[in-house]
């Protein structure tokens, strides 16, 4: 009996340490979950002379994808975004983060544009209001303009089907 308790404690500690090792410290939970999107007005990257405001998120489920031409992983997730956009399950908007607008437009022309519209955030100031700390990051925003989910990292088909799409379905049916 006297050996059993320390063994139990040891196993308990091992369990916590193991769980800790599994955590990726760069995948931080968003502090903005269930909060409304910040009020903003920024130039559109792809729609000439138009401004992109938070009102554009109202009325439908949206994904806001933070990307840049200098972000190699964004290139990797791009084809998945094209597929999601084509499926029509959710509207995808882009936030072009700390990028050169001309290079960004060329990039979209060359690889394809999955975005209904793209915010041009050259200095990364708007990104701070979204709690962005790198690219790619993707936010799920519901039809009331409330942030419901955030995914850090490139979206793979697996991530879309098992993590994001369920969230889309979940919040789509909320009043």
């Amino acid at each position: 009996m006297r050996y059993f308790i320390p063994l139990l404690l040891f196993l308990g500690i091992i369990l916590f340490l193991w769980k800790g090792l599994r955590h990726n410290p760069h995948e931080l939970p968003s502090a903005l979950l269930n909060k409304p999107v910040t009020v903003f007005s920024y130039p559109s990257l792809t729609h000439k002379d138009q401004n992109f405001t938070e009102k554009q998120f109202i009325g439908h489920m949206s994904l806001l994808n933070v990307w840049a031409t200098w972000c190699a992983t964004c290139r990797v997730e791009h084809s998945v975004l094209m597929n999601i956009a084509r499926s029509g399950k959710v509207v995808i908007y882009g936030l072009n983060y700390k990028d050169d607008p001309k290079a960004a437009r060329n990039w979209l022309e060359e690889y394809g544009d999955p975005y209904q519209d793209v915010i041009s955030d050259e200095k990364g100031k708007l990104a701070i209001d979204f709690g962005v700390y790198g690219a790619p990051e993707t936010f799920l925003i519901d039809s009331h303009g409330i942030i419901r989910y955030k995914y850090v990292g490139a979206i793979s088909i697996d991530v879309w089907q098992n993590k994001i799409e369920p969230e889309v379905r979940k919040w789509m049916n909320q009043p």
Partner: protein
Amino acid sequence: MTTELLIKIMLRLSRHFVFTNLLLFFAFFSAASFANDTSFSYQFHSPAEQQQFQTVTEQLRCLVCQNQSLWDSNASLARDLRMEVYTKIKQGYTNDEIKKYLVDRYGQFIVFKPAFNKITFLLWTIPFALLITGFFIVVFFTRNFRRQT
């Protein structure tokens, strides 16, 4: 003439492993200290403001290079957030207000010392609780052992 001599000496010395290592070591660290915000110089109204800037940024974590503070880090995000802190200081925000502004957007993780509240209560108290429990467990077991001898 002396530069030729210096170059000769350095070439001779560079054959030694220790010398090359020390050279690289210093080169690395001096490069790091020069890279800090060279493209923008912060203008403060007073030394107090400047001190406030350093104090606040030292208390905030760089989310990219996570063991560095916003004061130390050269990451792009750190530079952006330093600019935010600078702007807020000029607008007259207090240290707590600036920290709240960033915590609202990035969560408690951005502050090195998490606030003590209902949510972080366990985070603060569990280590001490475990330490005290462990102490009593050790005492309990050694007591039994002593009784047997």
